[in-house]
């Protein structure tokens, strides 16, 4: 029989099922933006597989090592509850950014609508409305570039920082702990 400490638990279907069930239970109980939840699940998934490898290094079979890892991580409900404040903060940031992004658009749309009503009634809207139309790209002077919504968009900056890599090519931060290599 193969040495259980030498086989890769992540290739073992039973071990994969154990870790998968735990992560699914955790996912069911996390409440917040999907990107934040996905990041939490990726992080804890990595932790669970690292723990499984550590248990395997103590000569456990893959499924037993995965079960030990899951037991070590604790009840998924308790873990999910621990993330509630962070996910609430992430939701707040998302809503705030959404309002920041859509607030001026909604305001401008209303003002343009009011300006159109003035024009429709045969009256010239106040000069301030002309400025707004220019800002929205509707004036002839801005037509070459087109209105703001048709211009090329700059991709948003990366929201997640990537680790700096060392000269050896590795992330340079893993040397302090590796399962079975202590």
């Amino acid at each position: 029989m193969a040495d259980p400490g030498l086989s890769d638990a992540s290739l073992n279907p039973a071990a994969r099922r154990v870790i998968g069930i735990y992560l699914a239970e955790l996912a069911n109980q996390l409440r917040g933006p999907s990107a934040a939840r996905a990041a939490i699940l990726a992080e804890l998934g990595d932790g669970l597989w690292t723990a499984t490898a550590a248990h395997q290094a103590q000569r456990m079979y893959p499924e037993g090592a995965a079960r030990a890892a899951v037991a070590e991580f604790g009840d998924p409900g308790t873990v999910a509850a621990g993330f509630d404040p962070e996910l609430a903060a992430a939701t707040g940031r998302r809503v705030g950014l959404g309002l920041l992004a859509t607030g001026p658009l909604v305001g401008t749309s209303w003002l343009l609508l009011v300006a159109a009503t003035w024009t429709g009634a045969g009256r010239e809207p106040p000069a301030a409305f002309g400025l707004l139309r220019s800002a929205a790209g509707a004036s002839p002077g801005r037509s070459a570039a087109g209105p703001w919504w048709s211009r090329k968009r700059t991709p948003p900056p990366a929201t997640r920082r990537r680790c700096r890599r060392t000269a050896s090519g590795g992330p340079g931060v893993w040397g302090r702990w590796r399962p079975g290599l202590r």
Partner: protein
Amino acid sequence: MRAEVLKGHLDGLLLAALEPGPLHGYAVMEALRTGSGGRVDLPTGTVYPALHRLERAGLVRSCWSTEGGRRRRTYELTPAGSRALAGERSSWQEFSTAVSALLEGRPWPTPA
């Protein structure tokens, strides 16, 4: 050692675990276990929300890399985290001296 005993000290312990250098979440828990001779043995899953809280407070920062085909998040102390750790150490010294003095019936140590 139960979680409720550690309540109020977990942040300091996590910052201390990260003081020698960056670690991922599981390695932070292992550092606590090893450094306490196995006496600090919290459910590993509860360490991750605490690390996220410290990051939101600006005491640690994290980055992502790929290790063995999996995405891995690693934490390190920020300068504010180092200052907070120094503060935790100083207040722990004062607290433990006071409790030791009371439990053991010794007078409060006065400077010579």
